[in-house]
């Protein structure tokens, strides 16, 4: 299991293949020749998500904005 965020120099073809399988897991048609582009987009999201996991978000004081009202 790879730990995100990945250092750019450690990203391998195997990572991209794995990320591409996530798209198929999502039950979408195979992106064929574009698999690298899609895998890279998935990788970008994984990296960003990993940064958020490191942001120290507090579950009690910082609940998710599920009904958005900027006045509250």
């Amino acid at each position, binding site marked *: 299991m790879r730990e995100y965020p990945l250092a750019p120099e450690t990203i391998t073809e195997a990572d991209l293949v794995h*990320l591409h399988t*996530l*798209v198929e*897991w*999502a*039950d*979408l*048609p195979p*992106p064929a020749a*574009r698999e690298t*582009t*899609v895998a890279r*987009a*998935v990788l*970008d*999201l994984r990296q*960003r*998500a990993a*940064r*958020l*996991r490191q*942001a120290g*978000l507090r*579950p009690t004081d*910082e*609940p*998710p*904005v*599920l009904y*958005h*009202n*900027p*006045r509250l």
Partner: protein
Amino acid sequence: MAATDLPFLSLTDLRRLYQQRALSPVEVTRACLEQIERLNPTLNALLTVTAEMALASARAAEERWGRGEPVPPLLGVPMTLKDLIDTAGVRTTYGSALTERHVPTTDATVVHRLKSAGAVLLGKAALHEWAFGVTNDNPHFGPTRNPWDPTRIPGGSSGGSAAALAAGMGAGSVGTDTGGSIRIPAALCGVVGLKPTFGRISRAGVYPLAWSLDHVGPMARTVADVALLLEVMAGPDPADPATVGLPPLARPALETAGDLQGLRLGRPEGAPWDDVEPAVAAAFAQALRTLTDLGATVQPVSLPDADLIAATNPLIIMAEAATVHWDRLRADPDAYGPDVRTRLEAGATILAADYLRAQQARRRLIAAMRALFTTVDLLVLPTTPAAAPPIGAREIALPSGPVETRLALTRFTNLFNLTGLPALSVPAGFTPDGRPVGLQIVGPADSEAVVLRVGHLYSQATPWSGRRPPLA
């Protein structure tokens, strides 16, 4: 007045001239339709032109003006609408081949409000496919071109609305903004655009991109016109729960002259806020001098961590957009353009936990902005870090290096979708090669009246609003 000036009259001027019987709605509508006929083949700003319907509405408006009775605020004013907004009986494509022949049976709430106010619909404005992008380089309908330089993008996704306004195809338009899609094209085309506070204008009947980030807003060539459109468009609508229970919209004091004495403006400092191309930096510095001359004080402020914003926005927008498009994408993936399809497919892999964590981060961003607005009244910053790039440019060269076009253009705008705060883009000058630059004015929730008044006074003190591109 020369016939060529008619398409460029402001909404406010039109109303005054109609009242004086110095001009007729039919005359103005015809002039706008001629402008469309002349320029739309080049600019591709409108996907559908409703000429007959517009002339019929204009004739009815003319007759009503002639009765001398009280009239609604937009009677006989020609306008366009972004083609993401449902119009009964008029083709509404959402910028997609999948819905190329879609004809809604009902009007969006905002369309109903505009029609009730007497607006004349000239046509439906081009957009990025499904509003999911900022270039308006649409694979199904072709690129929209910037009236200031047709080799360049108008920005997006409300690029057709902005290009139409700059080219004199109507006095107002309606756009939508999920990450900057009203303000970016307004800046790149030299017009005015407002993303109001979240919930201020109903989104019922507007095809969603990302539910928790979508806003509808007015666009025009002057701040006063945007204020008038906002007043017509805003209000509660049970069909959009975000609009219910808001404080009433305050009317900005635009009729009275004034200055900005006592107003505290915050200017973001540090990366990435100062990573802008030199011509934008120069225009922004000049804008700050103008605002200071008007009496405002400007102080540097720190905005929330840029990495947090950059991580939060795509996780929310891509997860929500993937959910919106899930069935269509599975059924007909080849009907999507490559850029939108890639983002939707990637968005479909976002874990629920990561989406919710992004919504948690959003709570932090909202709290940070609320704290900031206890120290300053408004925030001012460039709308975009660069002026319009060429059509097809994948990257924009910023001082720190090349940045993907979509990420560069949304960098200064998407924070205010995440936080739901009102943000206005007003023209703030030109690059040496003639491309418009925008100034963004942002306030706390429900501060549209203050944001608009500052934008109005700034525009009155500068020569940038209402300029015409050479081809128009």
